[in-house]
């Protein structure tokens, strides 16, 4: 039997709108994910910050995650904390490709 992680992994590019101030939002997201799901899940999730071309709105954070871990990421976004304070954030767009994500962000006015 093959282990679960040996399935083909498909990437999901996720843009997150942060409604508050946080010096390092990506680290805050990683910390929240680690607190909720642990070090192993964090490692397997393939969580990684992605830089988009074009003028992206400052409050948008874009990450890549493997598709099987998308729900974990969404739960982390709902319960996101920056330091000791809860940070309001929500997922703006999800796509399987960076170009698709950029199109969605352009439609929603986050990218020019």
């Amino acid at each position: 039997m093959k282990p679960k992680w040996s399935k083909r992994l498909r990437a999901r590019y996720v843009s997150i709108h942060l409604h508050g101030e946080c010096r390092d939002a990506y680290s805050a997201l990683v910390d929240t994910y680690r607190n909720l799901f642990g070090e192993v899940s964090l490692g397997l999730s393939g969580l990684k910050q992605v830089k988009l071309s074009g003028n992206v709105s400052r409050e948008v954070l874009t990450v890549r995650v493997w598709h099987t871990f998308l729900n974990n990421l969404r739960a982390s976004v709902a319960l996101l904390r920056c330091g000791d304070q809860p940070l309001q954030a929500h997922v703006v767009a999800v796509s399987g490709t960076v170009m698709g994500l950029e199109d969605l962000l352009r439609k929603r006015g986050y990218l020019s």
Partner: protein
Amino acid sequence: MNNVRRRFYDLNVGPARDEEWLDAVMAMAEHLGYRGVAIVVEDNAEWIRDAASAYKVELYTRVDIRARRLRDVRKKISKLRWADIIGVICEDRGFAREAAKLKQVDILSFSGRSIGFIDTRQINVVNIHRKPIEIVLRDVIAGTTPLYIYIEKLRKALEVSWRGGATLILSSGASGPGGMRSPRDIASIASILGYPEDWSLGLLSDNPRRVVGDML
């Protein structure tokens, strides 16, 4: 089914303060993709309906009754006919079962420790009397209580509701726009506990919609 455009509802935001507050809440609800929001009010405030008319989001007034005895609930309910939704905050297991039998009560609300009161017997009672159960995630979202403390209670509540086929609703219980979260992000909290995505999304769309549809 996941591709169907869903209408999401947050049936517990408030209590309402002033017009500025309401504007911020309605704008945030629209931004997050909610179709309807229930604002907790303390008195019959007509200004709420007037102020919310500029937004696409449907607004419902809600009153939460906190009482120890059923007699007190009955007394309060008689004066609350103007409210769209009447909720009862359940802080006692026995009281929660009795409150489900009251015709005028629309929602039984559980938050924090009281989530543990949602058991098979409670589900049987609410099924007989067709009452929806609401789980308020205020403490978890605000971070005043770590998730691990409530995760077992939450899992059990979801499991008995899933098995019993009860109408379960998840709501943010936000006190302002800053406490509100995207419906899909809230639903993912149920998804990570092992429930199908479609069912989890129903906790914020189909189930509250059924409640709102019954009320009006």
